[in-house]
């Protein structure tokens, strides 16, 4: 127990002696340390600039790509796209077209038998 107290007192003593030596540093050394600190803190500035750069570069690239896209490729409006899509859908889904073709087969047979159309079909006239 006594030894522990002695150790503790010794540790306090060494700490105090060290702190006193730090407090006694001369002005020139303290000035150099201040300069060193300012120099180290300058490292924060480029990091902020780089951070902005990392944000701005992809944004600029995206803007340039969009500009090229809209310049080279003519824009198609949403309305046109919708109408075209609807027309295609109507044609694809229309069932009456095939029925109409079956009903008119008789008409096409009759038309082929007509003399004026038969000549035209043979390349005469």
């Amino acid at each position, binding site marked *: 127990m006594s030894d522990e107290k002695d*150790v503790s007192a010794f540790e306090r003593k*060494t700490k105090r002696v*060290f702190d006193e030596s730090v407090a006694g*540093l001369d002005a020139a050394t303290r000035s150099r340390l201040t300069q060193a*600190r300012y120099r*180290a*803190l300058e490292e924060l500035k480029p*990091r902020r600039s780089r951070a902005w750069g990392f944000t701005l570069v992809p944004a600029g690239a995206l803007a340039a790509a969009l500009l090229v896209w809209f310049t080279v490729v003519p824009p198609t409006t949403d309305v046109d796209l919708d109408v075209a899509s609807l027309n295609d859908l109507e044609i694809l889904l229309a069932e009456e077209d095939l029925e109409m073709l079956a009903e008119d087969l008789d008409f096409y047979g009759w038309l082929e038998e007509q003399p004026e159309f038969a000549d035209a079909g043979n390349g005469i006239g």
Partner: protein
Amino acid sequence: MELALSIAERGAGLDRERALDSGAEIEAFLREVEARAYRIAAMNIRDRDEALDLVQDAMIRLVRSYSHRPSEEWRPLFYRILKNRIRDEQRRRTVRSRVLSFFGGTASEEEYDPIAEAPGASSDDPLERATSGDAMQALEQALKKLPARQREAFMLRNFEGMDVAQTAAAMGCTEGSVKTHYSRAVHRLREMLAEHGEEQWA
């Protein structure tokens, strides 16, 4: 839309404030630690300009690489960087000394200790230092005679006031090793300073 802009502006403002806070916080940390760090570096290197350069280098590396880390980690990180830089410098001096020795210099190849051999005070005898009333110089001379790991553990734990976990992080070893190194350092220092009968270290 205005609400979104307002939120974005407020967010940017908070980011700026946070960056400023972080800058102010790390500056406060460096201000707090710089003088003691210099003193520790000077005790190891025994060269004022070299010690100042090492401290500056450690500061720069900390700010550059670790300023984004939680502030509780700065102290062990900073001293780890400083410790490594001190070791690098000591190795450089050792190599230089060995080269000089090879080419006919005076340094002994086997016994060379860069700290013990570094230019210091007028006497290396702890008794003489202590009796001269210069407690710090006596302590420095005694510290020079400790193994490097014990010296590191003592400086970080005692001088810098770091706890066992922080010291372990700074030294790159286990907490058990820190306790062992520190305990041996304290007892060895007490022996060296007290065996000469100096009252102020009793």
